[in-house]
């Protein structure tokens, strides 16, 4: 197994995420927090993020249907989601959160729905890419090596 190649792939995948705006500087801050004491920190945070954001998205989806035009409620969910996104550096998702909230402020249902769909797409894309990324890292080396953030 060509570990260095896998690592290169992982690095390239990550770079792509940054270049395309899926991730921002905050993600690097999170990576910086990974150390010997928390060798899997980044992946742990990402796992938590997707679990929590998945839940929020599901709730929001239900709310969109069950509580039509309940902008306050929708906005509350989205604010939570925005908080998570900004903590992990999920930049595109965060932008969609903001535009969703703008639409809420304008009481624009179509705007909300549109943003929400985009948000879900971004969520799915980011999830898939990050999962690939961590998978590459795991394959890329022995336990210790795999968790080192790949630059």
């Amino acid at each position, binding site marked *: 197994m060509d570990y260095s190649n896998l690592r290169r792939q992982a690095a390239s995948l990550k770079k792509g995420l940054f270049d395309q705006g899926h991730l921002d500087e*905050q993600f690097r*801050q*999170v990576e*910086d*927090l990974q150390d010997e004491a*928390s*060798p*899997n*920190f980044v*992946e*742990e*945070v*990402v*796992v*938590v*993020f*997707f*679990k*929590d*954001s*998945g*839940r929020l998205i599901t*709730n929001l989806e239900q709310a969109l249907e*069950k509580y039509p035009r309940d902008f306050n409620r929708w906005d*509350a969910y989205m*604010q*939570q989601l*925005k*908080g*998570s996104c*900004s*903590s*992990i*550096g999920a930049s595109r998702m965060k932008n969609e959160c903001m535009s969703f909230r703008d639409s809420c402020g304008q009481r624009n249902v179509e705007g909300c729905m549109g943003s929400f769909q985009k948000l879900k797409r971004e969520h799915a894309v980011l*999830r898939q890419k*990050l*999962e690939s990324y*961590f998978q590459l890292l795991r394959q890329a080396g022995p336990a210790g090596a795999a*968790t080192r953030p790949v630059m």
Partner: protein
Amino acid sequence: MMRRDERRGAAAAATCRDQFPVGMRVLAVDDDPVCLKVLETLLRRCQYHVTATNQAIIALRMLRENRDMFDLVISDVHMPDMDGFKLLELVGLEMDLPVIMLSVNGETKTVMKGITHGACDYLLKPVRIEELKNIWQHVVRRKFSTRDSLNADMYEECNKPPSSDSDYLYDQVKCGSSVQSGRPNKKRKEYHSEEEDEDGDSSGQDNDDPSAPKRPRVVWSVELHRKFVTAVNHLGIDKAVPKRILELMNVEKLTRENVASHLQKYRVYLRRLSAVASQQAGIVAALGGRDPFLRMDAFEGLQGYQAFTSPAALSTFGAHGLLNSPRNNQTAVVIQGVATSRSIPTGSSSCTTNPLIGDAANYHLSPPGNRHGNLAQGLVTSLGQTQLEQKWMNEGSGDLSSILSGSSRANGMPRMLPSVTSSPLLPSDLVECTQAQVAIQPPVTAPSASLEQLEGAIGASSGTLVSRVSQQNALSPSGFSANGLLVHGSLNNYGASFSSNGATRLGDAFSASFRQTNDFTVPRGMKVGSSSFGGAIHLSPDTTEQKYLSFGSSDSLLDPKLVWSSSQLPSNIGAHHFMS
């Protein structure tokens, strides 16, 4: 488990404190698991000692149990179980700790709100480590600035009569901060006061001169506070002066100054009650309230009430309503049936409070604007009050019998209604609460059977409580769901001592009004653990609550009730897959 960790953490922290800011003990509160995890790690990277929780209620409980455990609190603004601003207020008032707010929302008005509620800083998410590296300044600044302030000034302000809402809030803020500033003089000491040089002072003046040498801080245990309230009630709230209170309390090693400062805080607390209650006066709580949270801490005044026959309603305060601006709270001030049927396992300490709660349950506290307006005021609606109470109620057995029998004292001022801030926690929390440190009160020979119910209900699982209720009262808990009651520790201690003492007088006032009203049905034997804040939640089948419930579901990677300190971190999560 948490306690062990806390202790270990505290011990470790003690050594670190010498190298301040290294080892500064931070309590981090954020319902968002991602933010919390990142924040905690950031803080540890700054070499602080971190305790993190995703529930404000748990945070409050920890703070109340021992405010010396932390140097600083960082909290999110938007949390489902408690408004961050409310937590901020409470912590500032009660524990005199610096609080930093966090939010994604950087709007000026929100930031302003944070500042006016006493935040010493307001950070926007995502938080950068650079910002966190400086937060220790707030701890130092607070210690420095408080040293010079005069408690006398505070006392004056704290004793201004309640005015309009805005004035009141302003006073409270001022008062709160003043109170805060006076506290450090007595901080960091455990238990008994040691200096009694003031005992002989017969000036009768409240005189907490902060320029005096640091005095050891008295811990106002449940028992102590109960004695205090009993004394105050006996004298009459308006006539209670520290010297007389001290005499009545007859507690060795307690100084007039201790009593004086405690009285200050108590008055603040009462004022908050009255202000909030008056705002809500006139709002009749919907029976079976839709509010997911039931405030238990207002039960204080209900103790001693023995007429279980009259229907009373426990007001269920929407936690948010209570916690947020009272103006926005539409929950009824009146105690509706909700609470009574819900046994709120409050933990051991609620022993004393249970009877009270039962009593409280029978109170109809709503009358707005009438002479019983005070009653309404007695309803505690703000967490802040609860916190005050909590602080005053540590473990300790109170003189329940005196409280319960104290039917002759009616100061006409309802104390707080037990209001339990509930959280969508499951019964396991109840268990947790029952283990909270609380002294079990000796069984009071209460005339009413409900007392026994209450006692039996205390600390028991919700299931047990319910069964006892049905046994003894044949009152069917209206919509009570055993699982619905969660007791969160924070308010735990409060209700107990509070209600026990203050209730005597209030009880009479209440009973009078109660007998006249029949429209409220309060299940007897309401075991609202007034003191045990454990957080009984009144869960009504409401989708709103469902939202909260789901919050705590196992869906989340992190145990929603999880509290962990920096020494212990679940670090094996990495093995999980993204996809759930």
